[in-house]
């Protein structure tokens, strides 16, 4: 520890610099989750807001586990959670399979080409997410670019149904989240010492052996970071399944949205959110923290 970071918040402005973002986050990030928890144990009523208060008129505590019991016993919700998790997991794997060679290729290209290639990966990320999903609507349509091409070349006689299928959702997920996978992978692969791979090959390792024994373990931090950045948001994704998926492709992000806005069942929507939080976010964050701590201890 050196002089600068040894200052234990002794200056007023330092305290202020911590306090301001701290208070903001407590009010606008932590408090909302307490409210979600509170509303998830309420009953829906016809009022504004459409929930029963936690403390009733006569001062009694009004809590119910009905929403959670319903979520856990209703088969439809269990299937929806499972489907969301599986689709997000498969999309993450696809991103990894496509993103890894690309990140590797960028990391191994000449420095001048490298910055252009990186720019081309980042550019779509800056362009509106919604518009990128929209672009696929024009491609995957029954009368869209791809089908017109397939019919025109005679590969198929009739347009293939691609829009409003799970296939379209996967395309949308992989397309939207691919940069999130490539960038952390690139960051770790770029720092990797390529001499290690060459040394292994000089010592007689086959390229696949060199890859699995050297490159893959060294790239692991990037793989984990990339997978997290894709998997968590993909699980709760709303826009992509709404625009590209069929009406029967129920995913949890959309169920939450509809439960809240269409059915106006605020308590159930809150319970859906809490379960999603406990199912996905918290386990992953804990896992990530443990691994970061292990890595620190190793280093």
């Amino acid at each position, binding site marked *: 520890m*050196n*002089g*600068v*970071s040894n*200052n234990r*918040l002794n*200056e007023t*402005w330092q305290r202020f*610099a*911590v306090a*301001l*973002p701290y208070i*903001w986050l*407590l009010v*606008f*990030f*932590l408090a909302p989750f307490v*409210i979600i928890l509170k509303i998830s144990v309420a009953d829906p009523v016809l009022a504004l*807001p459409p929930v029963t208060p936690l403390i009733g008129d006569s001062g009694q505590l009004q809590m119910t586990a009905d929403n959670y019991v319903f979520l856990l016993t209703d088969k439809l919700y269990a299937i929806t959670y499972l489907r969301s998790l599986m689709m997000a997991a498969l999309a993450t794997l696809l991103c990894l399979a*496509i993103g890894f*060679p*690309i990140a*590797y290729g*960028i990391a191994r*290209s000449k420095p001048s080409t490298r*910055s252009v290639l990186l*720019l*081309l990966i*980042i*550019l779509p990320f800056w*362009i*509106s997410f*919604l*518009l990128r999903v*929209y*672009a696929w609507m*024009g491609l995957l*349509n029954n*009368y*869209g670019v791809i089908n*017109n091409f397939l019919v025109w070349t005679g590969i198929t006689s009739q347009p293939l149904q691609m829009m409003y299928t799970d296939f379209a959702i996967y395309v949308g997920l992989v*397309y939207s989240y*691919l940069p999130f996978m490539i960038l952390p992978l690139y960051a770790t692969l770029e720092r990797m010492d*390529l001499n290690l791979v060459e040394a292994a090959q000089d010592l007689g390792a086959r390229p696949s052996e060199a890859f699995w024994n050297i490159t893959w373990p060294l790239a692991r931090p990037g793989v984990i970071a990339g997978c997290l950045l894709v998997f968590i*948001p993909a*699980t*709760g994704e*709303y826009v992509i399944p*709404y*625009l590209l998926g069929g009406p029967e492709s129920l995913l949890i*992000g959309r169920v*939450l*949205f509809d439960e*809240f806005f269409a059915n106006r069942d605020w308590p159930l929507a*809150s319970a859906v*959110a809490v379960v*999603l939080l406990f199912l996905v*976010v918290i386990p*992953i*964050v804990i896992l990530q923290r443990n691994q970061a701590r292990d890595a620190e201890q190793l280093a």
Partner: protein
Amino acid sequence: MKANSRFIISMLSFGYAFLYIPLISVVIYSFNDSRLATVWGGFSTRWYGELLRNEQVTSALFLSLKVGISAATLATLFGTMAGMALARFGRFRSRNLFTGLVMSPMVMPEVITGLALLLLFVSLQQLTGWPGQRGFGTITIAHTTFSMAYVAIIVQSRLAAMDESLEEAAMDLGGRPFRVMIDITLPLIAPAMLAGWLLAFTLSLDDLVLASFVSGPGGSTLPMLIFSKVKLGVTPDINALATVIMLFVSVGVVVAWRIGLRMQRTND
């Protein structure tokens, strides 16, 4: 260094084609004269004219820009403070909670954050009467909360990569920590703050889910307007709008990239 193998090169070509073909097809179809979005009816720029005359679009764009500028500025202010606290203030009480709070908006699924914030605003309104109307203010708060994490990370990693000796030297020479921050640290992290501001601004302009939750009737941002139209299918005027947005973003990003390259070169 060995050249890339044929496999890697074909994966690169496939990857970039995958990323860009959809965008290029939108640009091409924006010049389509036909009202049917997928039938080519000859070259025309009429959809761009209709776009300019569409008041819904211009007012939604105005709201989006207003929110984007306010949210990015607030997020840069708070995010820079948080980033400095994480990188330079050493250990302080409840640092772990602070770190968690700063980072988690980044990984939280948007539907959860959006729902949570809306429920907060509704409860606050019941208790205090504020916010009376949801719109500009509430969307700005939501976007600030969500994007300050990105600013904090950019500033923190810039500070972590930066040598502390300059700051230490200034302190050894008798500079008070506050002055050292203003005279030494801030100028050094200014590029990171600018990058954070731009990222926060883009994230705000891009957001649909949070805005849909926390906005009230009448307060439609540009993505909300686009989404309500796109739900019904592909339309030529949205193609034109998408092309205009892509043009602006691409020019902005390329200019920022070239400035960045030049700065790197002069630094070397």
